[in-house]
């Protein structure tokens, strides 16, 4: 027994195979009396039922918070929260803020300069030449036409 296995855990990436919406809960706080909540109260009455119906994966919790500005707090799967104060906003604007909270990933907002992020090794020049040799051995033992090997080999024979 000359081979020993090192324990590793597979890495999951959202969107491959299945997609999980990252926003899991949306807390909506309002006040019955304050003027800053007027837009929020209208939003709760007009837009919110439809919005909640369209987004069944998000848990909506509406609760009063007297004598405070209205606020929406999104809770995300990674454990972080995102809060938006929606004082004195129009209902349509509050709807946009709710969509922003729904679409957010919950990660910390940071500047990214590279458009593509990857956990795969580079295809054209990986750390070792595994994939190359792999295909040669595969074709070799599959008793396919042997000119495949010839075609693959010049890269090494140079």
């Amino acid at each position, binding site marked *: 027994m000359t081979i020993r296995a090192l324990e590793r855990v597979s890495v999951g990436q*959202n969107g491959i195979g299945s997609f999980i919406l990252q926003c899991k809960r949306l807390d909506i706080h309002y006040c019955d009396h304050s003027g800053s909540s007027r837009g929020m109260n209208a939003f709760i009455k007009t837009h919110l039922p439809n919005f909640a119906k*369209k987004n*069944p994966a998000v848990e909506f919790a509406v609760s009063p918070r007297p004598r405070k500005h209205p606020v929406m707090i999104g809770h995300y799967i990674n454990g972080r929260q995102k809060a938006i104060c929606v004082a004195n906003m129009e209902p349509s604007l509050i709807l946009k803020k709710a969509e922003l909270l*729904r679409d957010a990933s919950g990660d910390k907002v940071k500047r990214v300069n590279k458009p*593509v992020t990857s956990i795969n090794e580079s295809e054209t020049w990986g750390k070792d030449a595994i994939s190359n040799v792999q295909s040669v051995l595969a074709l070799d033992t599959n008793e396919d036409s042997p000119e495949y090997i010839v075609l693959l080999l010049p890269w090494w024979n140079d």
Partner: protein
Amino acid sequence: MSRSLLRTLFELRAPSTPRPAAQFKLPVRSLSTTPLRRDSPTVSESPTISAQSATAPSAIPTNPTEAASLVAESRSPTPQAPEALYPRIPQQVNQPTSASQATIAQLLPLLRTQPAHYLTVHIWGRPYLVTAGDQIRLPFKMPCVVPGDVLRLDRASTLGSRDFTLKGSPYVDERLFECRATILGTETEPMRIKIKTKRRQRRNKHVRSKHHFTILRISEVKINGPEAVGL
């Protein structure tokens, strides 16, 4: 509600079962990945293979609504005429030479046997070199999409594996590969504040900007054989 049901169907489908072609050919809602380009066709030279994208001329999709460049797949087809946000631009294909056809027929199976593939997809004119599982941060917020939608990307200028590269001129034939991306959501970056100063003025102007970016995840990359273009 219907969208979530449809999404359930999509996510519970086995990856091995081939998707019916009509599913993404539905003229549901089309967004073009590329602006209209009338470039003169250029033959690009690759160190390994150089091949123009080979296409049988009879199979060029001429109907603008027949195939969509970038189609939100999880949308349910509407009975009335689809609202085309952006008219589909048919792929500009050059007449393949017989030499390039022979090269594709000979070497594309080899490219397929090498295990991992990359491709340079173009989304609204910008190239992104991706492999399966990569995350793309688009420099804009894509309109009319919600998280979980699946896009089919059909403009690519390069297909490749470790040893082989197929270059298109300018694009590879869209029947040679299948690339799908899932919308993950929208992200922002910290607000940028640019201070504008003018000489001999005692005020500085603070210009604020904060943009939203759509995040995609490449969920599927599949290379089809040369029989997809009738070779």
